[in-house]
């Protein structure tokens, strides 16, 4: 279709325009050009995604869209779902970024936690933010449109580099440098695995189109190897435990439109890659593949949210929560693969629909939450929740929008987080159809873990919203906070509206996802029904139904009836403002409130075996008498046992090997000449014997 081609060209042109415009112009013009380019590009991406999803047929795009030889592009329904994600969050990030990249009025950015040394640093360069935003969006669009291994790898690496540069926006921050180093390392480890698996898949030629790969047959050993490499490669990108270590370092230090994009979209590229390679190109596999994904996903889900609960850094909390949600998506994909291996097509399609829907919903609400956190950081200068509080009064819009995001991630009906979790639950509940009881028993355990993760998320976001926005400000910075500028609020409002719309309209979204599932060779979950507003979302072959629209209408109706009822019952006594009740205490200070560490303390005790916390209590007594305490110092830390058990030994081993190899660089010219002779001899002999 000519219009799809036109849209694709417009996308690339808009991003190029935005990148160049942000780089060459200064000040407000630069920010505006960058934002405009990103916004136009993202809207075009969104239109492209909607067009293809509605139309349903895949279309190849001529490489003129991106003029490098060897690049093959194609957009099909699976790509279209991820184009929707990119377009939605990209547009919001573009609008938000316009306001965010302006220098914050009189609030230089503080180092993250506690007092921190070094003093406030100048605001990061807005030109970098605008350019990198466009570049990142462009590379991600290219990623989902890739139709051969070369384009896939090219876009992957470009995306990693763009993200890394974004993390390094504030290069004076040692935390950012450390995060960038880890990110680059993990990313390239994943890239190596990706190169390996694509070589295996395409039989050595990286430029053959994916269609050829789809038809190829591979031995079981090669398929298993490809699968394991895929889990590693896409696990590092998507933040699967234990490959997640870069995530809590990188996401908090990037500027907030980047954090939003990274959490919302870049992680989904890992999901996209997994779906593309394992489900589309290899058409699924034996049940143990699904089991591996289910197990890894469950581990990530629980691990992610448990660590999120203990965080006092708002953005790190959100980063860990992303790990949890990605874990949920992996669980859904794993369940789908298990169903697929047993030939249960309908439950499999429900599971994959749930995974895709959750990917879309997570993008919407996580983007919103990161943007809210960014607004708070910009306004108060800190992301440490122990120094925030009371912001619902000074930043009402941000608070309200963050609340929508928090309610969405906690899976409260009738928002979008609940709709996709409901779908995933329904898919897992179909597990009893699996003929083998030992495999079937995995499903209720997965249901239990999913429910636990869901409950812990609710607890975590009560803490995140409550400590940050409610009660009394805990520091002068929080008292001086002011509302975010209009563009930032507009970006957040866009995503909040998406959360509400996606939550109320699963009957619209899920049938459209069927196109993506058919692209993966699965049957659609039920015929696409006309979008009757009140029709409950009942999926043919599954066990339950629900109607979020009627639910929302019912809730609003009950609230209205209660108001009227109270009036009629004569409950009209006016509200009087008084001091809070504190058992008769004289004054109320911010220090009397619950802190974020205190809020999570019961769960810290309950899960102490997993956290292995260390407590350090030092009491300084007065020199004159040990009965008078001068000060008490308390340090509570959670032991980073994944770091200790896996990464430190591995890095130690690598350093030792590197040390040995370094010995080969003796510095002597004669030694190097000897190396050259030996290499030449080996090459000549090899060409003789092999040639």
């Amino acid at each position, binding site marked *: 279709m000519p219009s799809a081609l036109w849209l694709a060209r417009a996308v690339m042109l808009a991003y190029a325009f935005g990148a160049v415009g942000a780089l060459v112009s200064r000040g407000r013009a630069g920010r505006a050009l960058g934002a405009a380019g990103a916004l136009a590009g993202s809207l075009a991406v969104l239109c492209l995604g909607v067009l293809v999803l509605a139309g349903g047929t895949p279309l190849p795009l001529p490489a003129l869209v991106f003029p490098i030889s060897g690049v093959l592009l194609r957009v099909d329904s699976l790509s279209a779902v991820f184009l929707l994600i990119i377009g939605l969050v990209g547009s919001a990030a573009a609008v938000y970024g316009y306001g965010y990249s302006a220098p914050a009025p009189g609030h230089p950015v503080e180092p993250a936690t506690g007092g921190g040394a070094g003093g406030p640093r100048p605001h990061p360069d807005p030109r970098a933010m605008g350019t990198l935003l466009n570049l990142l969006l462009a590379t991600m669009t290219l990623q989902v449109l890739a139709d051969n291994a070369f384009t896939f790898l090219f876009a992957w690496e470009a995306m990693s580099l763009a993200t890394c540069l974004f993390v390094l926006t504030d290069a004076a921050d040692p935390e950012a440098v450390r995060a960038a180093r880890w990110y680059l390392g993990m990313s390239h480890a994943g890239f190596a695995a990706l190169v390996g698996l694509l070589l295996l898949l395409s039989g050595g030629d990286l430029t053959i189109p994916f269609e050829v790969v789809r038809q190829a047959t591979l031995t079981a050993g090669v398929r298993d190897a490809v699968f394991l490499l895929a889990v590693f490669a896409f696990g590092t990108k998507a933040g699967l435990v234990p490959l997640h270590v870069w995530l809590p370092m990188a996401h908090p230090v990037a500027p907030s439109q980047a954090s939003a994009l990274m959490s919302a979209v870049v992680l989904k590229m890992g999901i996209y890659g997994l779906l593309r390679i394992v489900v589309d190109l290899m058409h699924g596999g034996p049940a143990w593949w699904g089991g591996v994904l289910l197990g890894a996903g469950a581990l990530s889900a629980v691990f992610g949210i448990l660590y999120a609960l203990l965080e006092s850094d708002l953005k790190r909390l959100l980063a860990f929560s992303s790990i949890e949600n990605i874990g949920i998506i992996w669980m859904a994909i794993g369940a789908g693969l298990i169903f697929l291996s047993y030939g249960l097509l309908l439950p499999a399609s429900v599971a994959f629909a749930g995974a895709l829907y959750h990917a879309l919903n997570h993008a919407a609400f996580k983007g919103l939450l990161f943007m809210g956190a960014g607004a708070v950081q910009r306004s108060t200068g800190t992301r440490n929740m122990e120094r925030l509080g009371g912001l619902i009064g000074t930043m009402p819009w941000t608070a309200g929008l963050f609340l929508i995001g928090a309610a969405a991630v906690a899976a409260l009906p009738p928002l979008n987080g609940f709709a996709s979790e409901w779908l995933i639950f329904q898919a897992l509940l179909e597990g009893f159809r699996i003929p083998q009881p030992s495999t079937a028993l995995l499903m209720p355990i997965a249901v239990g873990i999913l429910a636990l993760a869901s409950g812990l998320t609710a607890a975590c976001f009560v803490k995140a919203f409550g400590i940050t926005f409610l009660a009394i400000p805990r520091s002068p910075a929080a008292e001086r906070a002011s509302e975010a500028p209009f563009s930032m609020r507009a970006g957040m409002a866009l995503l909040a509206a998406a959360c509400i719309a996606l939550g109320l309209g699963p009957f619209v979204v899920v049938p459209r996802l069927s196109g993506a599932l058919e692209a993966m060779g699965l049957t659609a979950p039920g015929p696409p029904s006309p979008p009757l507003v009140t029709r409950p979302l009942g999926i043919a072959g599954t066990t339950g139904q629900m109607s979020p629209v009627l639910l929302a209408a019912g809730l609003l109706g009950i609230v209205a009836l209660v108001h009227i009822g109270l009036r009629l019952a004569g409950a009209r006594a006016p509200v009087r403002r*008084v*001091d809070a009740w504190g058992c*008769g205490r*004289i004054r109320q200070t911010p220090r009397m409130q619950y802190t974020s560490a205190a809020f999570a303390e019961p769960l810290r005790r309950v899960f102490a075996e997993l956290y292995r916390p260390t407590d350090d209590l030092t009491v300084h007594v007065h020199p004159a008498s040990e009965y008078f305490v001068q000060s008490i110092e308390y340090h509570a830390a959670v032991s980073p046992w994944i770091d200790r058990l896996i990464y430190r030994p591995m890095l130690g081993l690598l350093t030792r090997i590197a040390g040995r190899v370094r010995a080969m660089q003796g510095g002597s010219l004669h030694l190097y000449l000897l190396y050259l002779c030996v290499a030449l001899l080996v090459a000549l002999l090899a060409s003789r014997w092999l040639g």
Partner: protein
Amino acid sequence: MALFTRLLPSTVTEPLGAGEHDALHVAREIDRRAQRLFGRALAIREVDAGSCNGCEIEISGLTGPIYDMERFGMHFVASPRHADLLLVTGPVTRNMEVPLRKTYEATPDPKLVVAVGDCARTCGVFRGSYAVAGGVGDIVPVDVFVAGCPPEPTDILRGILAALDRRIPEVSR
């Protein structure tokens, strides 16, 4: 087994009846509207403003099986925000003067105050002490004083019922 014999309608609660000597002093004109409102459902918050706890022991008997104030629709609550009536004991010590006032302010209108014990009315044996700020009536407006050191639980109950202007039931079952 003893637990299940309790299911049979045998309770040890004593009927209230009218008292012999008059331990009640109604201090203020009690709000009629409040009385009508609290007639059948009364939430009581107990405040110990420096008492020796003798009155508290008697008050705690009110929730027990013998005196059972719940049969009159009264119950103790955990916060003055939930309360309709403040049951105050003790000579108000200096440290408890502000908390008592704050408790009174934290109670929503309409509200009643019943001061229990001689200490609450006249500071009792602690009158003139350096640690005492004054009787309860000097700190918050009191509706009914119940005299006694300590007053019997039946007198306290009658004091509360007097604050509600409820007819003392002859026989209550």
